């Protein structure tokens, strides 16, 4: 797919969304009736309202065919940015420009009316998403088949199960032929089979060169689907680029915040909450390594710290592929000797001879847990390494196959 586009045109794809110095201010008011407004009119009124900048000076250019994720903690402004892009909110300052047909899926079935039948709602919803009646007529069969609603199409949607409701809404949305699809955490709907259908559809959209802008809290989804990610923090763009970089930065941010929260609580310095993972290293034959060959001997060392001391503890190490799949995991409880209590710092060394991973990027996460399995401290995706692609195989596991032929009877 990438090679095809590279040969097609050397020029960059056209810009579809151009956000320029956009800021959004919300006025948080504490009164809403006429009487309260009049009573607090003028200067007093200002004391009853507060400005809150949900977004500050956002510059973002999105080109056709990109799949871009907006990530950040709750309240970082990602949904507001999505609404600005979708035209649902106007920026307080700056501008948002775009072209092409936009389908905003901020909520599945927005505008479904419970008293109308499935069929009527399909027509209404499709028209809300920009389809003409003739276009809906032409696609109605596909929509009905995709949703799997079957004989309930002429039943009022208030009698639908929540799964049917969502499936029908999603079916309409993905059949509207958008140039730009804006998705806000709605991909996690339906049963597994339906989810797979949705993901297939999203991949089809990508192949068609449609632009997808999504907000999600699922980092594996970001790593798997997106070719670009934007990390927002307190209404500003922190990172805009490779999804893995943005995810790493996001994890750092969450960890910083956790420590800041702890500091804000003014705990005693020896509070158990200060347990942490002091350092982690990844070495091959004693050398720090960023590139690992399939048969290399990996050594992962983690130094953990507990201020008050605990008798039973566990340091777990996990290696994930860039799609978020766990490829390897182990813990200090599998050591031949007992670890003994943890007070102050201790280092755990895990040697893995010959992991035989297939080509790709991998992340190492380390966490410290107590006896009950509660996480005391974590360092998610703290290290990463690349494995060069094998010449004779693909996939997560690397092995050298021998291939031969014989005549069958």
């Amino acid at each position, binding site marked *: 797919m990438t090679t095809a586009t590279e040969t097609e045109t050397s020029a960059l794809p*056209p810009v579809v969304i151009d956000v320029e110095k956009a800021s959004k201010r919300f006025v948080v008011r504490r009164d809403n*009736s006429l009487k309260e407004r009049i009573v607090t009119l003028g200067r007093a009124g200002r004391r009853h309202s507060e400005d809150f900048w949900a977004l500050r000076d956002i510059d973002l250019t999105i080109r056709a065919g990109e799949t871009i994720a907006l990530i950040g903690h709750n309240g970082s402004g990602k949904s507001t940015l999505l609404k600005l892009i979708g035209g649902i909110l106007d920026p307080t300052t700056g501008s948002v420009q775009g072209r092409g047909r936009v389908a905003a899926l901020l909520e599945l079935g927005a505008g479904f009316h419970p008293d109308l039948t499935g069929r009527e709602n399909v027509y209404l919803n499709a028209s809300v998403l920009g389809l003409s009646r003739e276009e809906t007529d032409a696609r109605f069969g596909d929509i009905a088949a995709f949703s799997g609603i079957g004989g309930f199409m002429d039943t009022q949607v208030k009698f639908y199960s929540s799964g049917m409701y969502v499936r029908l809404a999603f079916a309409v949305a993905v059949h509207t032929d958008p140039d730009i699809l804006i998705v806000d955490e709605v991909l996690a709907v339906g049963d597994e089979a339906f989810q797979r259908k949705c993901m297939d559809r999203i991949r089809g959209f990508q192949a068609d060169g449609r632009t997808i802008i999504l907000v999600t809290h699922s980092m594996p989804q970001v790593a798997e689907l997106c070719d670009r990610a934007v990390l927002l923090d307190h209404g500003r763009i922190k990172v805009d680029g490779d999804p893995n970089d943005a995810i790493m930065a996001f994890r750092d941010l969450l960890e910083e915040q956790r420590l800041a929260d702890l500091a804000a609580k003014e705990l005693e310095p020896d509070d158990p909450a200060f347990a942490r993972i002091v350092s982690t290293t990844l070495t091959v034959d004693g050398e720090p390594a960023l590139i690992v060959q399939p048969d290399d001997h990996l050594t992962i060392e983690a130094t953990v710290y507990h201020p008050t001391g605990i008798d039973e503890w566990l340091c777990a190490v996990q290696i994930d592929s860039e799609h978020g799949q766990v490829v390897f995991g182990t813990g200090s409880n599998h050591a031949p000797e007992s670890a003994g209590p943890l007070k102050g710092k201790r280092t755990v060394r895990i040697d893995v001879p010959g992991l035989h991973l297939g080509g790709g990027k991998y992340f190492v996460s380390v966490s410290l847990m107590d006896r009950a399995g509660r996480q005391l401290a974590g360092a998610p995706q703290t290290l990463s390494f690349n494995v060069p692609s094998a010449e004779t195989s693909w996939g997560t596991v690397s092995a050298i196959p021998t291939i031969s032929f014989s005549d069958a009877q």
Partner: protein
Amino acid sequence: MTAPYDPGSERTLRFARLASLPVEPVGSGGESNGVGAALKVFRHRQMLDLLVRRDLKSRYKDSSLGFVWTLIRPLTQLLIYYVVLGQFLGAARGIPDFAVYIFSGLTIYGLFSEIVQSGVGSIVSNAGLVKKVYLPREVFPLASVGAAIFNFAIQMVVLIAAVLLSGSLRVETDLFYAIPSIVLIIVYGTAFALLLSAVNVYLRDTQYLTEVLMMFMMWASPIVYAWSMAKNIMGGGLLLDVYTNNPITLAVLGFHKAFWGSGADTEYPDLLLLRMVIAIAVGFVLLAVFHGVFRRLQGNFAQEL
């Protein structure tokens, strides 16, 4: 997919088409003037149609009588006013065919009151859509206007049937007065529906205030009494002018002239048609101004709801 499917070419075609489109501001920031906004609404007319149908269908959804209810309310009003005001209080004495008189006034006033009262809550009651999808927001009050016109059409059928049955219809040029009356009401009704629906987002008291005003407006136009009664009391001064040139009064008078044949010799304000034409012109100016206010207010709809 049955057709040969080549994502590569689909991609190229899409990019080429996108590259040929102009880059425009998204959302409501796009139109710098009311004409642009009106064009945008016009492009969404199919959706407007669907929204009107939705409003109508959902209103009497599970009732067995359905649309008959749109008639029962005005007919009950008619009965009450006819009996209480007409017979008990004697308002019918100076007004022949009092039932037709009241019903023609109630029908045209009902159009105005329904447009405004269902329009005022239209943005708030469609909060789900306003917050989640971009649409020209004018479609919501306009859908209320559409649904009100539909109900009005049903009442018109009843009114015309009643006029024919009572034998008071005269085929004359006066019937023509119905047209400016309806235009007048739709223009003013739409203007106020746009303004009030937007204001209601910020101040929810608006819808209650509107209810009160609608009640007042009904008695401030000659629906259950004659215009000449008002004239006798007010005299010929400024007060009467204000009262008469109120667009609702003009529309009600126009409807009387069109459908209330028995009252052909009754006194009407002079130059009624001219007054109506001027009121319509003023109404269009008002519509443009209120639409301007609507467009200014709509930027923050999604966050206020």
